[in-house]
């Protein structure tokens, strides 16, 4: 069903989206090539997670086109969307593990639902992935018994259990210590190189982004500022990019009266 030679596994053109009367993303256009790591950057609230949700068909855009593995997903029938989603894996910002199941049951669920493999094979496959994520000692724990970093790795293990062609990963390093987040970065590169995955990562960690990215897209306030490889980003003269790279706060000069008005408005 899916063309294995397709070059751009994701193609977004002119995406606009709103929450109520508030525009969240405007005129986003980008593509993701097979076997690359695309990092989406931007500060908190800029619309990164929202963009990710559109790419996997969880939200519907107000206008624009989104192609996933060559197929237009806006307005797609739900069973066709599910068919398409069998080729992707999504690791959520908070892990989103099912709280009534053990770690192992969480990871095995897609295999039980989508394959006819026998129990032992499924067990071996889930152990392989848990081993890869350094979680093999914790397979019988419930999600509530895991730390934040473990939850993230567990979510990742579940996302890659079906060996998806595209992996979406929301904020791998947010809230983790530098060592653990560096480990996750290595893991992402390993997944791309060993399992040939295309990977889309949302992050606001500069170091991590430059370590894993093949290309980077920067979003600010719902506007796409730039998309390009690391060199392009570094050479950019856009003040917002320069500020971001130099970790300078993006405070515009504020008029004293305006500021006072802002604080005292009701």
């Amino acid at each position: 069903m899916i063309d294995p030679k397709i070059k751009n596994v994701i193609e977004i053109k002119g995406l606009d989206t709103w929450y109520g009367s508030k525009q969240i993303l405007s005129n986003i256009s980008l593509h993701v090539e097979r076997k690359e790591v695309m990092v989406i950057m931007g500060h908190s609230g800029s619309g990164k997670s929202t963009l990710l949700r559109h790419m996997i068909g969880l939200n519907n855009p107000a206008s624009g086109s989104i192609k996933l593995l060559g197929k237009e997903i806006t307005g797609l029938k739900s069973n066709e969307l599910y068919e398409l989603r069998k080729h992707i894996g999504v690791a959520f910002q908070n892990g989103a593990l099912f709280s009534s199941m053990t770690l192992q049951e969480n990871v095995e669920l897609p295999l039980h639902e989508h394959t006819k493999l026998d129990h032992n094979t499924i067990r071996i496959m889930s152990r392989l992935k848990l081993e890869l994520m350094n979680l093999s000692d914790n397979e019988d724990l419930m999600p509530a018994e895991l730390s934040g970093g473990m939850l993230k790795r567990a979510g990742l293990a579940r996302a890659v259990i079906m060996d998806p062609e595209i992996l979406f990963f929301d904020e791998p390093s947010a809230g983790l210590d530098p060592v653990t987040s560096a480990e996750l970065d290595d893991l992402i590169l390993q997944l791309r190189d060993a399992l040939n995955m295309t990977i889309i990562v949302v992050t606001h960690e500069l170091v991590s982004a430059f370590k894993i990215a093949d290309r980077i897209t920067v979003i600010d306030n719902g506007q796409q500022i730039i998309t390009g490889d690391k060199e392009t980003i570094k050479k950019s003269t856009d003040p917002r990019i320069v500020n971001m790279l130099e970790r300078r706060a993006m405070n515009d000069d504020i008029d004293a009266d305006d500021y006072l008005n802002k604080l005292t408005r009701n």
Partner: protein
Amino acid sequence: MGTNKLQALSSIESVLIRLGIAGIFLFETTLTIVLPPYSLKPLIKQIAFIGARSLLVIVVAGLFVGMVIALQFYDTLVRFGSVSLLGSAVGLSLIRELGPVLTALMVIGRSGSAMCAEIGIMRVDNQIDALECMAIDPYRYLFAPRILAGIICVPILTAIFILVGIFGGYFVGVVLFGVSPGSYFQGMSDTVLNRDLFMGFSKSLVFGLLIVWIACDKGFNLHLDKHGAYGSEGVSRITTEAVVLSSIAVLFSDYLLSALIL
């Protein structure tokens, strides 16, 4: 005045839209119940969840309700000298009204609220999004077994409630007040018609559906609720709403069904 009218219209409109969404929810779930593949294990798990959770309270409540209506009827009937009617009075009121309604209210408190909170937390925590991303249909995976379990369990629990209630009534009427056991059961089997049994059964079936439908739909569509918080506060709010709404739905449909069948 114009704005008032407009506001009223738009709130009627939003209620209608919300009802439509609930209707689609039930339709989608019914489709996955009817169409293969079928799986038994999740259904059994949900039957255990609803049944086991409520069994004890149903037995205790059934016993006391049977006892108290026997007490009340005995006191009334004795004034007319017709205590022989005690069995039919207890049987009819339990089978036609009290059994189905009180069982439904108990199940709402024990299982409906828990179910709504569970689904609501899954929504808030992105677990439902995660299901959809794994290409697992939440209607099939989460709701089909719950709705089926509701329409299987509530009639069974109702039957248990009625049986225990009849024996509670027997204890008060026959053991405490000395009504003859023969007249208690004979009167009951003479007056209870198939129509009464049908009424009790169809009510419990409808109540079972209503309870699970409202609980699951409220939790699943938590994010559509525009009034107020979305996080854990949202879960507690929709759980309360689901309990109130399903109780009212049960009492209202109770009247409708009685009027329809009588």
